Each structure stands twice: as C-alpha cells, then as structure tokens.
C-alpha cells in the first residue's frame, strides 16, 4: 500500500509546478521579487533560507493562499495569471490537487482525528461517509495513528497532530504536497516521527515542496535544494553539492549559521 492513491502512479499523468516571475508586495514592503521555480513531477524540492526571505509566502502562492501581484502559476494542469479573476470552482479544483501541511497543524479542534480526515473528503470529493472513513482509517494507520481515530486533536501530541494533518491532506488524493515548516513547532524527537512519514511519502514518488530548517532532511530527501534570501532565489541545485560547496557567499553564511547550532 502506498500513501499516494494508486490512480496517481499509473493512470493519471503526474503534473508538476511551474511558477514564473512571481512578485508580491504588501504596500511598500516587497516580499517576493520576480521569483521563478519549476518543480518536476515526482520530485522533492526543499526551500531553505533565513526567515523573512519569502519562503512561506512563495510556497503559499502555489495553492493561492497568497495571490501574487505579478507572474504566472501553473500547477497540476491549472494556469493562473495575475489580475485575472479566478472563479471559485477552478480555485477549489486546484486546491484539491494540492495538499498543504502547516507549521501549526491547523486541525479542526472540535472534530475527532477521523472526522478531520473524513469531513473534507465528503465535502470536497463527495465521498460517502463510509467511503471516506475507510480511506481515513487506511491513512491514519499508515501514519501510525489508527488508535487515535476517535480522539480530538487536543488529546494528541504535536507530532501526532501533524501526522493527522498529513493524513487529512493526503485523503483528498493530491498530486502535490506542500509543507510549510512542518516540524518547526515540534521538539526534535517528535519532529522525527513527522519527517519519517514525509520520507516515506517522498519514496512513494509524491511531488513535494518543503519549506524547512531541517538540513539533514533537505540533504537526504530532496532532489533540488532552493536557497532563498532577500525575496529572491539566490541558489538552487543538487542539495549535497550546494551544502558542501555553496556558490553564493550569502548561502555559505546561512548554512554556517544553521549547521553550527
């Protein structure tokens, strides 16, 4: 059994991400300055860089939680141009093909773990309760939390909550998964549970974009390492090559700071 749905791997052509010339500003404050990134289907991209570099904002442009001021977004066969209105149906279609995991989990606190995973399937994909629950149990088991199905998130540890959140995102059978600092709110030991689920997901061939400070994970799991600083991508390429011999002085400075901790 794999984490991604079976249909994903064989029948449906897997789709990547192409972001071109993305710019975003809040008033006078520039957040993203003409940033472009292409992600091949089935690959893992790690986004690293100092805070304030624009990593999270850039990630959130992929599923349009942030609307860029300029640039083109092509995600899983959908194209979004800035300035043009996006109708609700297109937006929903795009979002259901892109799963997202947040730093603060954002599980629905008034629903059990099972309901958290099943409810979106019923509302977004129109699955019956039985169908949705069956898929949810499958995914909860896969993230090692079958026994937590009946518990509310408040009764689960941070690591468990994050794994439930991953199951919730996967339940909509996305072809792309976005992770916004998924382990930053967790202590290191608990973070490992989450990282191991993410490693399995990557091994299954899920297209992933991960904003992270976990250098070990970025080095071992990602196919492409992208370094952002000052609202731009300053360097990208093979993670091991960049980490051992960064081309940019800014990257060197950042890596030294992170690795010294």
């Amino acid at each position: 059994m794999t984490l991604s749905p079976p249909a994903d791997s064989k029948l449906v052509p897997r789709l990547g991400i192409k972001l071109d010339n993305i710019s975003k500003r809040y008033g006078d404050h520039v957040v993203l300055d003409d940033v472009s990134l292409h992600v091949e289907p089935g690959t893992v991209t790690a986004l690293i860089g100092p805070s304030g570099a624009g990593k999270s904002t850039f990630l959130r442009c992929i599923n349009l939680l942030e609307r860029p001021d300029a640039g083109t977004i092509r995600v899983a066969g959908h194209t979004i141009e800035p300035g043009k209105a996006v109708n609700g149906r297109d937006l929903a279609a795009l979002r259901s093909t892109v799963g997202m995991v947040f730093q603060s989990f954002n599980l629905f606190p008034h629903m059990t773990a099972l309901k958290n995973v099943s409810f979106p399937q019923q509302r977004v994909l129109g699955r019956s309760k039985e169908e949705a629950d069956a898929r949810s149990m499958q995914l909860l088991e896969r993230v090692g939390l079958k026994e937590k199905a009946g518990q509310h998130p408040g009764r689960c540890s941070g690591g468990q909550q994050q794994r439930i959140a991953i199951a919730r995102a996967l339940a909509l059978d996305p072809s792309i998964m976005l992770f916004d600092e998924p382990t930053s709110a967790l202590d290191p030991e608990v973070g490992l549970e989450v990282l191991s689920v993410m490693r399995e997901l990557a091994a299954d061939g899920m297209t992933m974009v991960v904003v992270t400070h976990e250098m070990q994970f970025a080095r071992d799991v990602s196919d492409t390492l992208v370094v952002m600083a000052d609202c731009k991508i300053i360097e990208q390429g093979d993670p091991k090559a960049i980490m051992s011999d960064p081309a940019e002085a800014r990257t060197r400075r950042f890596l030294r700071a992170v690795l010294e901790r």
Partner: protein
Amino acid sequence: MNAFTAVLEGLPLTVGLTLAAFAIGISGAVPLALGLSSPVVPLQLACRLFVDLVRGVPIIVWLFLLKFGIQIGTFKFNPVGAAIVGLGVVSVAYLAEIYRGGLQAVPRGQLEAAHALGLPRGSTFFRVVVPQAFRIVSPSIATYLVGLLKDSSIASTIIVAEMVFQSQSFARQHPTVEGILPYVIVGVVYIALSLPVAYLSRWLDARMRKVVHV
C-alpha cells in the same frame, strides 16, 4: 394577598418577556453579525451604525420611545408588545457584537486550512467556523441572558405587570414596613432564576472543554 403571591403574579411576564426578547436576539443577531464582519464596506458601516445607535441609548429610553412615540400605531395599549420589541432589538445589537467577537476569535489558521483543503464556503462557515465561535461565545451569551432577565424589570416603567411592577403596586398598597418585603422577595426570585442559567453555562463550557481539551 401577601407579598410573595404578589411578586409571583409577575413571574410569568418576567420569564416570558425575557425569553421572547432573547429569542429575537439570538436569531436576529445572526444576520447582523454577518453584516458586521462583511467585507462590503457600506453594509458593514450600516450594521455598525445600527449596533452603536441601539447600544448607545439606555434601554429605558428605547422603551419610552416605543411606548409613547408609536402610541398612535402598532403598540397602542400594548405595553407588553412594546417591551418585547424594545428588549428584543437591544438584544439583537448586543448579541451581534458578541457573535462578531466570536467569529473573529477563531484562529486564522483554521480558515487557511479550510481554504487549502478546498472546502466550500458553506462547509467552511457552518462546520469549521461556527462551532468554534459558539464555544468561544457561549459563556458571554449566558451572561447576557442573566443581564437581560434583570433588565426586563425596566418594562415596569411602561406599565408591564412583571415582578417589579407587582412589587411596586404591593408596596404602594402597604405603606408600612411591610412595603419592603416584596423587594426582598423579588431579589431572591431573580437570583433563583439566574443561578440555573449560570450553572448550566459553566457546565456546558466545562463539558465542551473536556471533550475538545483546549
């Protein structure tokens, strides 16, 4: 007739007035709260103006305006109707403000998660936002209900024969020390009515906290 039965004679009207105004309030406040949180600026301003206007004037003034101002029309010879409408409209304004606060207190991340999942607007609002907002506001609603129960006594000023009105007329008929009795009794009855609401609210709140564990 002794003081106790005199006070009790007003009990049905006190309870009825309170519940009727509360019913108007909790339902009427829903659209108003949505208006207050609307991104459509003119609508939001209109709702804000209404809320501030209603809350800015003492209830007793509204009741007098309703009773004597519209005496020619709808509320002629109907002080109970005027009191229900007056207290109801005031409740709409106060509860709308409570609801709005509750809607705003739901963490932003909850909406982001719902958006990222592609949940339809209706599901996002009714299944994600409202249940959490309700948990946040339910103690305030209970507090408001207890306040409204006591404020319903203001209706006595426009000749609604609720408990305070009955106490006053008893006192007027017994201009001795006995005249103080109905006021002591009515105070005890108000407390007896408020306590269950307060306890129910605390119990509900504790129960919701226990289930959700926040």
